[in-house]
């Protein structure tokens, strides 16, 4: 007997890289994760108008290509299963709470079984296998690693309708793949902002969390393309491990070394505030910087009147898989590739996203304000 699919159509190595243009701009070689076509597609999507209800961005889709799901149609009530990569950072925490609240909205879901793989590929492979035996009507997967989870997801596709979101897999067997526009858009949004705000020849420091994670690699590779075409000078690309203290130290070192840093690009917002503080502690004005939609950053932005932008990778995407699952089980069409809108926070709309009663590491684009239990479930205070 085998628990493995008969065949997998995977291509483990990330697709070919294009545009190896380092140009001595300090940005280094292009990431092997970079795919020009995806880059172009994502950048284009930014200006497309999503379809669906505007007040519910998690139900919207950009340029959807609908697929028929009649063959999955069945009567309720339903049991949904979810294999989660991990709940090991605030982004996933917010998303996970949002997803649970979404489940609570639907009476027809009588059972929701979720297993947490704790960031372990091997555990997630077993989890997916174990979930298939639980009589799920649909299986939602948030894969830990794209390549390595592909076989397990492929295997599940043969037994239940599968919905994948956040990180992808290298097979199109899932009924739908849900994600915001993507990392290229995120990285480009931030880089374009800096190119606009930093004077020509200005020194930009790029801070990355860690290498090798596709959603983060795409962010940087897009920024690299943007910077390489610009007149700013990228003086350093450093990894922070997402550690605030390390971030602050790195930024302080750069300030000391170069006397002045004119812009800071970040691939994620978690340590943006630490980077800002490095300038404050050095008694320098904070240069243009990007963060993410985390409350502490938005708060700082407002309080200090920063020149900033916050691209997002919205946590409201955690609602969509539940909605998609129900649509599929009811036989309604869903987009094959469900591209959610990916707004960015700017100084114009900052005040709509800043919610001072929410915890510092809360993500503004949770789409959770109208869900039962808000704000306490997300750690916020009623006021």
């Amino acid at each position, binding site marked *: 007997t*085998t628990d493995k699919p008969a065949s997998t159509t995977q291509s483990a190595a990330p697709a070919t890289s294009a545009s190896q243009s380092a140009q001595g701009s300090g940005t280094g070689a292009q990431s092997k994760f970079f795919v020009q076509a995806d880059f172009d597609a994502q950048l284009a999507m930014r200006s497309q108008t999503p379809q669906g209800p505007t007040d519910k961005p998690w139900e919207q889709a950009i340029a959807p290509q609908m697929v028929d799901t009649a063959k999955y149609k069945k009567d309720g009530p339903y049991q949904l299963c979810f294999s989660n990569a991990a709940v090991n950072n605030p982004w996933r925490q917010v998303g996970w709470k949002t997803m649970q609240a979404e489940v609570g909205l639907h009476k027809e879901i009588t059972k929701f079984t979720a297993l947490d793989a704790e960031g372990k*590929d091997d555990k997630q492979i077993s989890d997916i296998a*174990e979930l298939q035996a639980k009589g799920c009507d649909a299986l939602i997967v948030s894969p830990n*690693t794209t390549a390595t989870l592909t076989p397990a997801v492929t295997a599940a596709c043969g037994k239940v309708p599968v919905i994948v979101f956040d990180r992808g897999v290298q097979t199109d067997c899932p009924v739908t793949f849900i994600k915001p526009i993507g990392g290229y858009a995120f990285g480009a949004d931030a880089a374009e902002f800096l190119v606009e705000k930093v004077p020509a020849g200005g020194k930009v420091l790029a801070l990355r969390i860690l290498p090798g994670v596709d959603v983060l690699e795409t962010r940087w590779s897009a920024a690299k393309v943007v910077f390489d075409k610009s007149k700013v000078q990228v003086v350093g690309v450093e990894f922070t491990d997402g550690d605030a203290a390390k971030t602050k130290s790195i930024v302080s070192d750069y300030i000391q070394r170069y006397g002045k840093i004119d812009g800071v690009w970040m691939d994620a917002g978690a340590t943006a505030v630490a980077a800002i503080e490095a300038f404050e502690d050095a008694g320098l004005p904070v240069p243009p910087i990007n963060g993410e939609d985390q409350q502490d950053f938005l708060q700082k932005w407002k309080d200090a009147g920063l020149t900033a932008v916050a691209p997002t990778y919205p946590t409201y995407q955690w609602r969509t898989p539940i909605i998609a699952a129900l649509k599929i089980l009811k036989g309604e069409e869903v987009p094959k590739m469900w591209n959610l809108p990916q707004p960015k926070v700017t100084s114009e709309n900052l005040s709509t996203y800043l919610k001072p009663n929410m915890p510092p590491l809360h993500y503004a684009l949770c789409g959770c304000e109208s869900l039962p239990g808000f704000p306490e479930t997300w750690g916020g205070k009623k006021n």
Partner: protein
Amino acid sequence: MNLLVPARRGEAQGGRAARLPEPTQMVFLVLLGLIAIGWVLVALDGGQFLTMESVVGIQQRSAALGIVAIGQTLAILAGSLDLSVAYLISLTSLVAAEIMAGRDGNILPAVAAVLAVSALVGLVNGLVITRLQVHAFIATLGVALIIRGVVDHLYDGPAGKVPESFQLLGYSRIGPIPVSALLWAGVAVVAWFLLSRTRLGYRIYAVGGNEEVARLSGIRTSRTIVITHVLCSVCAGIAGLLLASRLGAGAPTVGTDGGYDLESIAAVVLGGTALAGGKGGVSGTVGGVLLLAVLDTIFNQLEINSFVKDVVRGVVIVIAVAAYARRIKGRST
């Protein structure tokens, strides 16, 4: 003034404790108890505990940790320990998948390369400990950093490709028994045989029991420690192969994400092997690994979040080892 004081605590326990089995056997009693508790809890929750899938799941989940923990048992019995296994697993999964590159014909060279690489790392660990006289904790931590640097430098994501035929190792099963569990069982049997039937095994116990006594009795203690580390690393290499076959590729974080370093040590001591060396054995470790896997399964079935899991795991480990310590104290007085 001081008449008839009550008997000492140690004495009172002595009688009871003396009848308790060895720690390496006790872990199986705990395991049975845990299965019973799990069965009840899951039943109350309206589920079924030991379904076919969960039994297969327990074995699948245990196999990699089990193999590493067997190697760790050898190192700990010899009075050492190995903190480099996690990074070595990542490294060997990459070596395997890169060399296989999706081709059946490359399986053998890949396996050979993995064994060679892991043996080499074990050799380095052993030599740093014995020749340079660096405490095993620091030596293997240092080697772990070295491997980490190399892996992080060369790879930033999954790489290589494991051919279908080799993935059977990770996925096929014979009835309810996965091949990976058979591999684990095989490694355990070999290690058990080695420890209880060969001179090397006797020497490992002797070196771990008291290195000086072993040396003065004519045992080449350094050589024993080096060989033990080579075996321990080879076990990690085998686990790396298994994980590569499960993932279909090599992954630079598979070892650390799995927490195989500290978790394998926890499994070993949970199995009643003394951290100081010289006492314990493979069977206990098998029990310890199964105990952790059954705990995981219960948590999975009850869908308990990972934070509670950590707390429970921490408490279980400390209490189990405390129970063994009680028993030993009871014995010796």
